[in-house]
């Protein structure tokens, strides 16, 4: 019990990390995109749980709503629109896949080396800053809301215009004419 209390977050992190990576590998390797979408969902949920470990409770909820509830359902709808009968005969990977994979892995190793050399200051010295408004202890949602509507109002409005444009664009693209 003491072991669990002391190492709970670490155990949770490793568990969720494994789930997220396995889900990601599923997306890339599974032949049927329907199964890939389900694998993607497990990754999204694991990442949402990881957000909570870093005091981003509001973002975790947004992740589940927008990714799990919105984007993934959109993907599933499009997959269901397509005829997947010919899928078993289709090649899964592009020509020259081993070479491409080698380049991707090399990029990963290079980034990993950079990461190993990096040192960061301040290791979560003041997590209360993520859950307080003007020094008063509130919730993460309140803190995000105040920051979003006070300091980032213009980007917020631009994002709404962007969503409108994307919506119109998607409708025009997918329209039958």
């Amino acid at each position, binding site marked *: 019990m003491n072991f669990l209390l002391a190492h709970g977050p670490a155990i949770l992190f490793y568990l969720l990390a494994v789930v997220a990576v396995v889900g990601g590998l599923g997306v890339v390797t599974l032949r049927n995109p329907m199964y890939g979408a389900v694998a993607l969902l497990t990754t999204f949920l694991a990442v949402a749980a990881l957000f909570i470990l870093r005091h981003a409770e509001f973002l975790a909820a947004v992740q589940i709503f927008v990714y799990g509830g919105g984007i993934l359902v959109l993907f599933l709808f499009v997959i269901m629109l397509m005829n997947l009968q010919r899928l078993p005969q289709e090649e899964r990977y592009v020509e020259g896949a081993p070479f491409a994979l080698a380049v991707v892995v090399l990029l990963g190793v290079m980034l990993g080396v950079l990461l190993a050399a990096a040192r960061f200051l301040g290791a979560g010295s003041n*997590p209360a800053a993520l859950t307080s408004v003007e020094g008063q202890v509130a919730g993460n949602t309140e803190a995000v809301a105040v920051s979003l509507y006070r300091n980032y109002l213009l*980007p917020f409005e631009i994002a709404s215009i*962007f969503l409108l444009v994307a919506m119109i664009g998607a409708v025009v693209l997918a329209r039958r004419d």
Partner: protein
Amino acid sequence: MVITTTHFLILSLTLFVIGLAGVVLRRNLITVLMSIELMMNAVNLNFIAFSWQFSDLAGQIFAIFTITVAAGEAAVGLGLLVALYRLRGSVNLDAATELEG
């Protein structure tokens, strides 16, 4: 055992590389779009990790905007995919070789 930001960055790097491999390697364009979503998620994980590291909310705000852009990108990308499927009857990469690419 303490989970540091480096742990999160390594996980994020792993997810990003897996997503990149999916974008580069797969022929099915739906899977390619899903891999892009995976990469965006890895980036969000970075933002959240650094938000905690520096005790600054800006990272979380930026992650919200990333999610917004990801949603728009998915909508437009899937719209393009549906248009391609109407045109060619397939979402395979080989169906889109009009530019001889």
